[in-house]
């Protein structure tokens, strides 16, 4: 055994540069998307549930709700797009919790990479998956008679609005991911919260008329209702700006609460 003094190399960098941060985020987003190649079921998962929902809702509830499938499509397609975005947001927490429990997250954090890259990379990848789901939903809707009544710009705005809201809202699932010890619990929790949240809105109905006053009030003021109404406006026409702003304000509020809570929970569990 030799006694040696440790001499570190002279070329160490002091901090992560912005360029490196962007590269780290893209690399980690790639990592989350390349998984699909090995697990094509995931893509199927991303596509099948939305397709099923569109078909079931349109053909089972359509005639009863609006008199015909065709009349119900402009109501239900934007609604399902919004609901699906909320459910898909849970996959951010699911993946994050998997990484933490499997030790992958620790490996990343022991590397000289941007501190925010593991989370940002995942959110970026999940945003791409969200866009994919929305495209599938629009395509299925189109196949059974749904038409975008507005213009390309409005359609693009609808995508941007949905993805922005989804990213802001996904902080709730990040928070749950930090609090539970198994990825499955993120899903269960998500289901229990998001199912009522999406139904207590105008996602599947034209208006809250006939619903008991207090419940209608809750539903009318739900962030999901505002998101759905804005999406309807952007896809088939109607008021947009107010709903979009209120939905985004909710999103900002939700992330302003849950982002710091998540960071605190992460520090506690580490």
């Amino acid at each position, binding site marked *: 055994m030799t006694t040696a003094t440790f001499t570190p190399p002279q070329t160490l960098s002091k901090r992560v540069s912005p360029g490196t941060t962007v590269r780290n985020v893209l690399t980690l987003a790639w990592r989350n998307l390349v998984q699909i190649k090995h697990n094509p079921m995931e893509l199927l998962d991303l596509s099948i549930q939305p397709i099923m929902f569109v078909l079931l809702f349109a053909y089972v509830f359509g005639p009863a709700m609006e008199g015909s499938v065709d009349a119900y499509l402009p109501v239900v397609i934007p609604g399902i797009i919004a609901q699906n975005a909320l459910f898909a947001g849970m996959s951010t927490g699911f993946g994050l919790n998997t990484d933490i429990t499997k*030790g992958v997250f*620790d*490996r990343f954090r022991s590397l000289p*990479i941007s501190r925010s890259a593991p989370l940002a990379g995942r959110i970026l990848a999940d945003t791409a998956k969200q866009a994919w789901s929305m495209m599938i939903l629009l395509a299925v809707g189109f196949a059974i008679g749904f038409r975008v009544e507005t213009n390309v710009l409005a359609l693009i705005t609808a995508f941007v609005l949905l993805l922005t809201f989804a990213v802001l809202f996904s902080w709730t699932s990040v928070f749950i991911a930090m609090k539970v010890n198994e990825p499955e619990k993120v899903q269960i929790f998500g289901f229990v919260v998001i199912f009522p949240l999406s139904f207590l809105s105008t996602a599947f109905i034209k208006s809250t008329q006939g619903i008991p006053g207090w419940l209608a009030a809750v539903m009318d003021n739900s962030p999901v209702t505002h998101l759905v109404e804005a999406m309807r406006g952007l896809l088939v026409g109607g008021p947009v700006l107010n709903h979009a702003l209120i939905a985004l304000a909710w999103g900002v509020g939700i992330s302003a609460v849950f982002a710091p809570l998540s960071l605190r929970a992460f520090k506690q569990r580490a």
Partner: protein
Amino acid sequence: MTYAIQADGLVKRFGDTEALAGVSLTAQAGTVLGVLGPNGAGKTTTTRILATLIEPTGGSARVGGFDVVKEAHKVRQLIGLTGQYAGVDEMLTGTENLILIGRLLGIPRRESRARAAELLERFQLTEAAERAAKTYSGGMRRRLDLAASLVGRPQILFLDEPTTGLDPRSRNGLWDIVRGLTDDGVTVLLTTQYLEEADQLADDIVVIDRGQVIAHGTSDTLKSQVGGQVLEVRPLQESDVAAASRIVGEMAGAEPEARDGMVSVPITDPQLMPAVVRRLDDAGVTVGELSLRKSSLDEVFFALTGHHTDDIEAEADALAGSTDLKASDKASDKEGASA
């Protein structure tokens, strides 16, 4: 002199629980430091602080000469980490896992691919290179995890219980890899629950218990401190236990422990065994079972602390059982030689 790893009075509290109560240790460049202790002793917490994953509540640590809190980014450029739970992405293939790390470290794509192939070859994973890591066996996952921590050619490597849960064959393979690393001048901090593992690999050993260092030194100094081996005698008649206990204790010069009809005592001189047999024979004690084996971690702890390791999991017990078996094989070899 600059140590590769130096911790001074590390304290870590999680809420009301104190995981570390002032851990100090040093590792010289190019050596293996073994951190030995039972579950919950503070091994993982120490590793995580040194690997910049968590900040200490008190005390300080330098890795590669840099402060783990204030110069964490520099520390991260020098270290590799292999945790207790293999930190590989199960959905990705072996190759993709290593390329991912290479790309994160800023190694160009082509070079990352070459480095991945080289490491997979070295760890005998070439055949499984294009398979998703979830199809790997436990031993293969650990090897991939270790390969991942070596992509950036770290000068200091943290191995947190790298062999926990592995079968003896995989474990021996991993030991060979660790020995190979120190030949390349890498400094290794290895935590383990197994005395034998620390004995096999470490130049220096730090024993920690309940968040404190309770002993440190080379494997030999530790063994002389606690008795390297254990002599076990089981009298055929339960009624002879007291007599056997007295004789064994007298001859070993240490307090024996009688448990379930088995008398055990730490000894430093294996030559004692035939003499003990004669004395027991003279006293009319018929021996049902007699063995000489290496001290288990539990016994080291008992000798150092006066209490048993109370929370070693069943999994660890199962594995310790298999190392005991191996140790008693060796002991019986010695027995034959001394007879």
